[in-house]
């Protein structure tokens, strides 16, 4: 069973508001991922970290999205100015090697 902890489970924000979600990866997992799952069950990779350093990120993440994974603190994903199209399930995952474990996600609704 996955021990990736995501908070909050649900988040409701107005358009233009900041939205911040957190993730505690499994202990000993150096790699952390953020994915966005839309209502059509399509997954979009956002960003991943290895030992607090960014490995890869997509263009969307570079503009309105910011993420960090400091040592000894939860990882976080923040949307600076939420848009309706950001409404989705945001999944955090961690891995040590090939196996990737997912949290239960934060469901963001932008109204």
């Amino acid at each position, binding site marked *: *069973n*996955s021990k*990736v902890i*995501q908070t909050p489970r649900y988040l409701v924000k107005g358009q233009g508001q900041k939205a911040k979600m957190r993730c505690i990866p499994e202990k000993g997992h150096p*790699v952390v*991922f953020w*994915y966005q799952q839309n209502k059509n*069950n*399509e*997954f979009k*990779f956002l960003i*991943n970290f*290895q030992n607090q350093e960014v*490995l*890869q990120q997509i263009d969307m993440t570079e503009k309105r999205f910011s993420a960090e994974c400091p040592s000894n603190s939860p990882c976080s994903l923040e949307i600076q100015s939420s848009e309706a199209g950001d409404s989705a399930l945001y*999944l955090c*995952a961690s*891995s040590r*090697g*090939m*196996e*990737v*474990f*997912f*949290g*239960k*996600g934060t*469901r963001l609704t932008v109204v």
Partner: protein
Amino acid sequence: AQSVTQPDARVTVSEGASLQLRCKYSYSATPYLFWYVQYPRQGLQLLLKYYSGDPVVQGVNSFEAEFSKSNSSFHLQKASVHWSDSAVYFCALSMRAGGYKVVFGSGTRLLVSP
């Protein structure tokens, strides 16, 4: 480019019947393949994984999958489904590049009817 294809968006089977969910992948290197299940309002749970060796892998809840390099496939199977198996199933591929970033298929929604 790497990709995962699940050709069946929805599958309906009767309780107690056998099940096969299809998955095909495209990747030039050695694939690391997974099946995840997602229940309503939940995250993803790992069902099983394939790295190498025996092409038939066993997973949780009596699921198994068979890897075929010649067919580029990784189909999920179960001999007898239960109503609680109703969920969305995702086939996925992990790549060594980018810290084992995962590429997902589009998912298959399984409905088990009584």
